[in-house]
């Protein structure tokens, strides 16, 4: 029995030794952008809130990247800075009561996450990319816009800090994706048209 425990412990230690767990951390800056005069509801699905990426690399073992927590914190702050008022929705379709207080619903999703290590790319850096898909619907359920934003990030690799470097690259990818959403949101013709309409409604009231 004692031998079995020792063997199990040894096996656990050996197996966990091959897995690099990456924690994504970083500051959450508030964007300096003009607020859109609209009340929006945001629905974050479970995959978005708890996004984890696991990958087994032949030469570099298993990698586990947990970015959901930092990603959702970043988006909550980002969305709060982009619109006059933001309500987080428990479901993609708001209740009739809540719908009457909103102008549109935004649904951000993570479609894909990928990373490269210096061993794979032959470069000095760890790099990460996140493919976000943003869907915007009006209160009648019509799709106003649907687009993809790709956030990129890279960070210098270190001899003993591979997990830290990939965490930084991932954080840079979240920031880059957020920056592109913040700056490019009103550049989309369909969103620009909707924003102009909201401005007119706002002025009428």
């Amino acid at each position, binding site marked *: 029995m004692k031998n079995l425990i020792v063997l199990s412990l040894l096996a656990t230690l050996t197996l966990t030794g091959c897995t690099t767990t990456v924690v994504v951390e970083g500051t959450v*800056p508030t964007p300096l952008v*003009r607020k859109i005069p609209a009340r929006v509801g945001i629905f974050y699905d479970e995959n978005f809130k708890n996004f984890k990426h696991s990958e087994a690399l032949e030469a570099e073992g298993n990698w586990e990247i947990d970015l959901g927590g930092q990603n959702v914190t970043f988006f909550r702050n980002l969305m709060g800075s982009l619109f006059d008022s933001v309500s987080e929705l428990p479901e993609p379709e708001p209740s009739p009561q809540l719908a009457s207080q909103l102008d549109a619903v935004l649904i951000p999703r993570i479609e894909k996450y990928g990373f490269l290590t210096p061993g794979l790319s032959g470069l000095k850096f760890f790099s990460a990319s996140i493919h976000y898909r943003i869907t915007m619907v009006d209160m009648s359920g019509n799709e106003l816009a649907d687009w993809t934003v790709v956030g990129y990030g890279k960070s210098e690799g270190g001899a003993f800090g591979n997990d830290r470097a990939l965490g930084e690259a991932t954080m840079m990818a979240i920031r880059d994706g*957020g*920056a592109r959403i913040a700056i490019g949101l009103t550049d989309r013709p369909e969103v620009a048209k909707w924003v102009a309409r909201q401005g007119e409604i706002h002025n009428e009231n």
Partner: protein
Amino acid sequence: MKTKILLLFAAVVLAGCVTARVEEQRSANTGILTEEALVILGRASYNDRETEESFTDCLASALGGGDQPVKLVDQEEFKDSLYPWFEPRTAPASSDELEELFQQPGVAEQIQQSNVRYLAWIDGDTITTDRGGSFSCTISSFGGGCFGMSYWEEDASYEASIWDLENFTTAGAISADANGTSYLAGLIVPVPILARPGNAACKALATQLRSFLKDA
């Protein structure tokens, strides 16, 4: 006394030879008040090269210290306070874009509040241009040792483009190039003779940048 001589000998022998060259190009008069600050930003692009964080850290440390320290604002703090305008893919590519950037809500106020007068964009990196030789270490039950000699040549090439945030102009540019060859000799124990061209380029650029900002 003996220890001092040994340390001096080690420092002379173990430091490889580096040659550095600095060039300055001035487009406008400068000058910095004691309360005004400089931000050093590493240019990041999505190709295979990027200015190393260690280089911008070295510059910040060299400029922030010494007899005539320059007031500095931390680059991460600066980027956070002006998010999303100084991210790798959104940062202004030239000083011509500054005027437009200052029209964004809160940007001018934020820069005024942080007292940043100049922005130094650092572009460049250190690369290994040549390597050769043969070096190996062995260990056995009878002992071990290293034999052989290997070398590698590094080239550090950096440029600082200085933007004046008060006038929305490029005040000038300073470039620093340094190269040197490092050796690793195996005489039972490995003896490294390291050239640090990156460090030499950093010191040269910092000295020139300080004088560029302080002199009109």
